[in-house]
């Protein structure tokens, strides 16, 4: 059932960062130690009321909240990568809308961000949603709404708190164009996502509908999530299939992850987890075996497209997978310059990928 492990950080990126900036003070390491040790967290956090958050978690959350959004904090590399996500999405959309449709420039797309964490991507996309729906979209990502989900109560809470600090994003939260839901992808598909108010929420069992709701999203994003899927409860294949089920026909599933190759092994396992001061990630943080290669993602998506189509209205089959619109490009962090898209570097570490669910 549960597909996502509530990691507090995309660890691969953190590891990469720590190798590049080995001067990080040790207190922040201890701060993240509980989060990265699987034994100290429940694999699924389904509490929807803030009152169920224990004092321990709250103090942990407040410490985490300040560093998640700290531009110089442990997530710095992730923040720096964020603009590239926008560019990659824009490049996918530019490819998708080859027809000179007059509506193609309007902000009409509904986004679902799976595993939003503290909301680095979700909030930045929500900021591009226009206040008034008229006129062309302000950015090529053309967002009309954003639903961001994460199974971790703490992170959702933190994301909501941070979103309030921007009046534009805050107004989208109030009108519902932007939603943070403390839920799983499976629950979204089952249509029993909790109400996204910060007030004590309704019992999730109030809406026991198990009917699959029709797919409702134009873009599903999956940034730095795929490498954190727990093999005990889910597989990348079933998880990606569910992502595709949430997509409208013609929509894009867009993600980023890390490949399981020798360079990434050296970077993430050998250097990042070396004893201090070279590595600052506690030993055992990473499960290199969970990293995924581009061809594996592609294979799962082909299979997933067929499966997703089978459960829908139309008949699926191998025809769906054959003409699959697939994009993949590597991204490399150069200290002092920043992240750069480098086509062909997919096997070196981080890469973006996208697939279009055909009409």
């Amino acid at each position, binding site marked *: 059932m549960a597909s996502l492990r509530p990691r507090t950080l995309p660890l691969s990126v953190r590891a990469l960062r720590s190798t590049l900036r080995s001067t990080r003070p040790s207190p922040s390491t201890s701060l993240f130690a509980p989060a990265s040790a699987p034994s100290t967290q429940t694999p699924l956090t389904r509490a929807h009321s803030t009152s169920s958050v224990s004092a321990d978690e709250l103090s942990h959350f407040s410490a985490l909240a300040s560093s998640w959004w700290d*531009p*110089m904090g442990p997530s710095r590399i992730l*923040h*720096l990568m*964020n*603009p590239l996500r*926008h*560019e990659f999405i824009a490049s996918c959309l530019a490819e998708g809308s080859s027809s000179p449709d007059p509506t193609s420039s309007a902000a009409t797309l509904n986004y679902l961000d799976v595993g939003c964490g503290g909301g680095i991507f979700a*909030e*930045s*996309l*929500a*900021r*591009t949603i226009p*206040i*008034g*729906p*008229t006129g062309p979209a*302000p*950015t*090529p*990502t053309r967002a009309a709404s954003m639903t961001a989900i994460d199974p971790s109560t703490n992170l959702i809470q933190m994301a909501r*708190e941070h979103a*309030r*600090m*921007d*009046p534009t994003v*805050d*107004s989208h939260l*109030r*009108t519902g164009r932007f939603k943070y839901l403390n839920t799983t992808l499976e629950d979204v598909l089952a249509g029993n996502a909790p109400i996204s108010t910060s007030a004590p929420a309704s019992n999730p069992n109030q809406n026991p509908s198990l009917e699959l709701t029709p797919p409702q999203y134009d873009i599903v994003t999956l940034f730095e999530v795929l490498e954190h899927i727990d093999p005990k409860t889910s597989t990348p294949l079933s998880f990606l299939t569910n992502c595709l089920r949430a997509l409208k026909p013609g929509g894009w599933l867009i993600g980023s992850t890390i490949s399981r190759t020798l360079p990434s092994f050296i970077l993430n396992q050998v250097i990042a987890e070396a004893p201090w001061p070279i590595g600052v990630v506690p030993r055992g943080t990473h499960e290199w075996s969970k990293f995924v290669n581009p061809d594996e993602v592609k294979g799962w998506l082909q299979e997933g497209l067929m499966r997703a189509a089978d459960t829908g209205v139309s008949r699926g089959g191998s025809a769906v997978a054959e003409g699959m619109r697939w994009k993949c490009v590597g991204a490399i962090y150069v200290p002092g310059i920043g992240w750069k898209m480098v086509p062909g570097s997919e096997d070196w570490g981080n890469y973006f990928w996208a697939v279009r669910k055909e009409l």
Partner: protein
Amino acid sequence: MYTTEARGTLDSYKSPIVCTVCTAPLSSIIRCTLQSPNTMRPISRALLRPYVCPTCRHGIGAGRRRFGSKSDTPELYDVVCVGGGPAGLGLLAALRASPITSKLKVALIESQDLNKAKAWDLEPNQFSNRVSSLTPSTVSFLRSIGAYDCLDVTRVQEYQDMQVWDGQTGSSISFDWSMETSPFEEMRTVATMTENANLVRALLRRIADSGDENLSLFSNATVASIENGKDLKPEGPDLSAWPVVTVKPTGPAAETETPKRIAARLLVGADGINSPVRAFADIPTQGWDYGRHGIVATLALAEPATQPFPASKRTAYQRFLPALGGPIALLPLPNNHATLVWSTTPENAAYLKSLPTPAFLAMVNAAFRLDMTDLNYMMGMQSSDSTHSHQDELAWRAQHTSLPTQIPPPATGVQTGTVASFPLRFRHAAQYISPRVALVGDAAHVIHPLAGQGLNLGLADVASLSKTIQYAVSHGMDVGDLLTLERYSSERYLPNAKIGGACDLLHKMYNVPGEGPVAWARSLGLGVVDRLPFVKSFLMKNAEGY
């Protein structure tokens, strides 16, 4: 108050206004809003904006409307710029010119009267004494934002050649592009001279051309205070990290108008050397006073002895005067006029300013011609001694001096009221950015004017910051966030420090009087640079921002 609002509601009842979102006519809503007098307030305010009916408004910004009705909540802006000099206005013009950032809600606060600045006008042969040289990269930035077209080009003078020499050793260097361009091409411009008032007026015109949507110009207004906002929980957003500026009108309006509070997503300090924005952000500055004053004046020059070739070629002159505390520069203006910038000690500056016009002119001409010893003597002459005038002294001493070849034509007149002086200082802010705060121009750095780079650095800041804001807006970034602003800071901090440091070094090297190792090194340095084309072209490209 209440009657005007009721009237406003009534008027709008007759007018065929429809909601811009759902096209519901206004009349259908009036009925329900009239039930409660409290709900009339938002309606009357909405008349000032494109009309949106309450149903849609509830959907768009329910929270916004509620906190808007509180008296202590500030108006929200994306970019608030404090200071309406060339840097501040340049930023505004750049933001308005880009289609990506033109929708941002921007404000500018300036203590002077911007309407007066926009109406600035002078006779064709009168020139303001506040003149700047624009490097080609600054000109291309101004072109790119459409401001250069608003400049009165008849008051602007390009020059293609720059003569720089050492008054002590006589070693010289000539900056022109002749080694880079073929003789058949048009000569490349070294820099463009323009009055600051002309530039400010051009920028104001450019901003006015962009319309007044999402734009507030607070003219004749000062910043009374800057503080952090409040968390408007539960009805509104958390503004506790947003700077809130209290804008107080000055002049006659101060009595009638009440101070206004505006909150800034990004507060830009373009407010000069004593920047209040920098003080709010608690950013320290390093620096020192040079103990020198710059004298400026608008001069009329004699016809040059030999006509320039090609005819349009103009030359700027700068001579270092180690014995007098700094260089003297004569930069061309249209119609044989020139602007003078003479850096010297405060005592010399006071002496020069006290001289009658003919004596002042004689000193300027002497400074380009005579030896250090002669100049020192003339600087101490009794200005009231009519039998023994500066002019005679210059004429006599010039006969016994071998004049350098590159001297400018003699100055023949001073425009009245243009002789002024200002202290020379070096300042560099410890950083340019802080959460929701960015510093540009003199608020971030003040440098020695000997290379004429101050305004160019300020406008380069503005070009970089506006580009950074464009990038942020198109990538969903918060324009006030440190992650956004660090792009600006990392692009500008080092170049500014480099040029400021180079000017400082030049100033110090050319302040060692007499012969000696420093003077030899100077002349060797200039001589070597002048003979090595690639070094010279590298230096020139650096100086011009290519």
